[in-house]
Structures are given as C-alpha cells and as structure tokens.
C-alpha cells in the first residue's frame, strides 16, 4: 500500500485570523493537500495555499526532472476564503508545474472568469495571463479519474452552492472533503436525513475512512446563523457517527473561536465519541498537521 498523507495548510473559515489567540489552530483559510504516489490533490485555495506553494517551490528545486509536476486543485466553491490564496501560490507562476483546477460551474459566473476576476488590476497587481504554469480549468466533475485515483462529488447546501469531493485511493481507502455545508437544513436533530439532499450526503459519506467536515458553529451559535451555510457541531458528529465514518476531522473553524475555545470544544466531542462502541476518532484540524491516510 502506497503512503498517502493529508496536510492541513489552512483550517479557518470565512476570513484569515492571524494573532496570538489563534496560533495553535492557525489563522489561514481553507486548504488541505493529499500527497499520494507523487501526485498532489489540493482541496481549496484559501490563504493556506501560500505555504504549500513555498514548500512545493523547495521541492521542485531538488526534484524537477523535466516532467511537469502535476497539481490537481479542487475548489468547493469560489467564496473568498476558498480562493484567496491562489494569486499568491508560487507554482502557478512557474512553468515546471501543471495546474488542473476542478470546480463546479457557478450559477451565474464561469469558474475561470471568477478566478481571473480576483486577479483584475483593481484587486491584484499581476494579471492571470502571467501565470506561467500549464493551467487547465475543468468544470465537468463527472467521474474524475487521475492516475487511478477516483474523485466523485455532490452538491451541498450553501449560499451560492458548494461541492463536496470524495477521493478513493487504492485498497478502497476513502476520504471526503465537505466544507461549507449547512447540514442543519438537511438533517433532523438526531442525525437522520430529512430531505433528498441530506440522504444523498449521508450515502456519500457512508463508512468513509476520513471525513473533513464543516463544524463552524457551536449549537448555541447556530441558532443565530440559520441560513449562513454552515453546520452546528453536535449535528455533524451525530451524522458522521450514524453514517459509520471512522475518523471525523472538524474543519473551517469560526474566526471568533480562539485556541482555548477550540481546545475545550475538541475535548468535549473527542471524549464523547471516542468512548462509544464502535468508537469514532475525532480530530480538530490544525494548521501544520499531516496525518497518514489509513483505512
């Protein structure tokens, strides 16, 4: 079995939150990278992708052999906290890299237009035309197969829409990246689906090894944030447990949640779900963490 590693480069939701109170979990917005069999599968391009870019530039200096290094970037949607790091991603300016960007067609804007929009001279000094990497934008998310790695997707409930991705590696190792999704509108409080979208999501995450999921709000906070497109913590735990998820990774932390708040919340849910039979491991994503993907 080949090694597969997931690194968290940014775990914050909505807006970057640097500062002493967030240094443990990190302030960069959404970006994770799966490294598997010398290929890279990057999920979201929030401010965290800048750090990944720095590491990839070090890597290319030592390992470039004339063949472009392939980076596959999957965008859950184009809200700022998921694309803002892309103009600062150094490999995009370097012809030794090949970038495949996958994302769902937005209702009113083309994905490519949205990405180049944030590089309009009003916002950013360098135009998209100066991206020297071989760059391809794919909006057809049907049955993606990249060197035998299969990636499927499903729609989520989020203002403007968002996409969850399921990755299947060798030996049926699976993980789902599903952020910016308001499960509270799709599930009953006991974790059972209450509409078709909920049922689809439930099937999508069933028995996966790792689920990286939106857990932005506490149950109390959610009451004031109905319709904002994010999930309450107790519910994501119940849904994941009911679906037989083996490892739940809580992600897209609220900008108001300091390290000590996240620490208290993580202890509470970890204890609760790791003492059950069967147990579900609960991990709170933090910047700078790399976990091995095992089934």
């Amino acid at each position: 079995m080949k090694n597969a590693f997931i690194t968290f480069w940014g775990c914050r939701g909505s807006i970057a939150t640097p500062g002493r109170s967030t240094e443990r979990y990190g302030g960069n917005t959404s970006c994770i990278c799966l490294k598997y069999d010398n290929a890279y599968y990057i999920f979201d391009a929030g401010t965290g992708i800048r750090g990944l870019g720095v590491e990839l530039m070090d890597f290319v200096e030592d390992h470039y052999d004339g063949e472009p290094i392939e980076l596959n970037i999957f965008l859950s949607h184009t809200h700022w906290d998921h694309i803002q790091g892309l103009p600062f991603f150094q490999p995009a300016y370097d012809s030794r890299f090949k970038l495949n960007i996958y994302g769902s067609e937005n209702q009113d804007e083309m994905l490519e237009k949205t990405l180049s929009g944030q590089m309009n001279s009003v916002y950013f000094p360098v135009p998209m035309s100066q991206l020297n990497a071989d760059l391809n934008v794919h909006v057809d998310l049907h049955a993606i197969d990249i060197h035998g790695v299969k990636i499927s997707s499903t729609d989520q409930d989020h203002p403007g829409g968002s996409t969850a991705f399921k990755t299947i590696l060798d030996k049926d190792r699976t993980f789902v990246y599903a952020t910016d999704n308001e499960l509270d509108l799709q599930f009953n409080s006991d974790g059972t689906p209450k509409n078709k979208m909920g049922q689809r999501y439930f099937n999508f995450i069933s028995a996966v090894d790792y689920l990286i999921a939106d857990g932005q709000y506490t149950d109390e906070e959610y009451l004031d944030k109905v319709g904002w497109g994010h999930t309450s913590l107790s519910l994501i735990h119940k849904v994941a447990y009911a679906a037989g998820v083996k490892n739940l990774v809580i992600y897209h932390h609220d900008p108001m949640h300091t390290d000590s708040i996240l620490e208290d919340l993580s202890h509470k849910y970890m204890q609760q779900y790791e003492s059950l039979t069967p147990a579900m491991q609960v991990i709170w994503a933090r910047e700078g963490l790399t976990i091995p993907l095992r089934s």
Partner: protein
Amino acid sequence: MTDVNHLEGDVRTLAISRSSVMRGMKKRRVSFLDIKRVNEQVQTYKLQETDVIIGRTSDNPIQLSFPNISRHHSKISFSNDSYLIEDLESTNGTFVNGISIAKCVLHPNDVIEIGETHIFYYEREELIS
C-alpha cells in the same frame, strides 16, 4: 482639572533613551522537551536548531531503549522558526495529543507519545547577551 502628568516630582517619566532601555533585552525563544516515563524522573532536553532523532538505538540523540520504539522512530527539526516532529515510518507510530501523525508543527503544551513515553513540548523566553 489637574493634569497629573505635569505634577512636580512625578517619577513616572524618566529621561532615558529607548535604546538604553532595550540594551541587554534581546530575547530568544527556546524550546524544551520534558521526557517522562511511568515511575521515572523527568528528563529535560533543550532543543537546538539541528535535527534530533528519537529512537531505540544508541546513535540517537534522544535514546529510548524500549521494545515498542523503532530504531529511528521520530525526528524533530527546526524549520521556518518552528519545531516540527516527523514520524520516521515507525512500527507503532508517533502521536501528538493522541493523534497518529506523519508530521506536525509543535506548539507549547503539545504532548508527544512514542511507545509508552510521554514527551511534553514547551517554550521559554531567554535573555541573550
């Protein structure tokens, strides 16, 4: 209303330059590991900027000669102003705060578990001359 800052004899304002205040105040963050095994004294290890390998055999700067520790089990390195722990594909894994990791940037109060040994990571500010 009296402006207290201008009262005669106010000792809170000193005629002293900023550079003289800062002289001798250069500080550096120093990182330590407290290594703890059941029924044994804590051993403290001060980290430098060179890589530190933790493992069972005597060629490791931190030697833990116990059966469930791999020969070269984990590595701690200094990069980007932070310490990073990496599992060296050990048989029984390296854990940070109870999670099996491949790599992890360390923060104060992280607890590393290697076999039955607990290693506490912490930082301190030290004056340098």
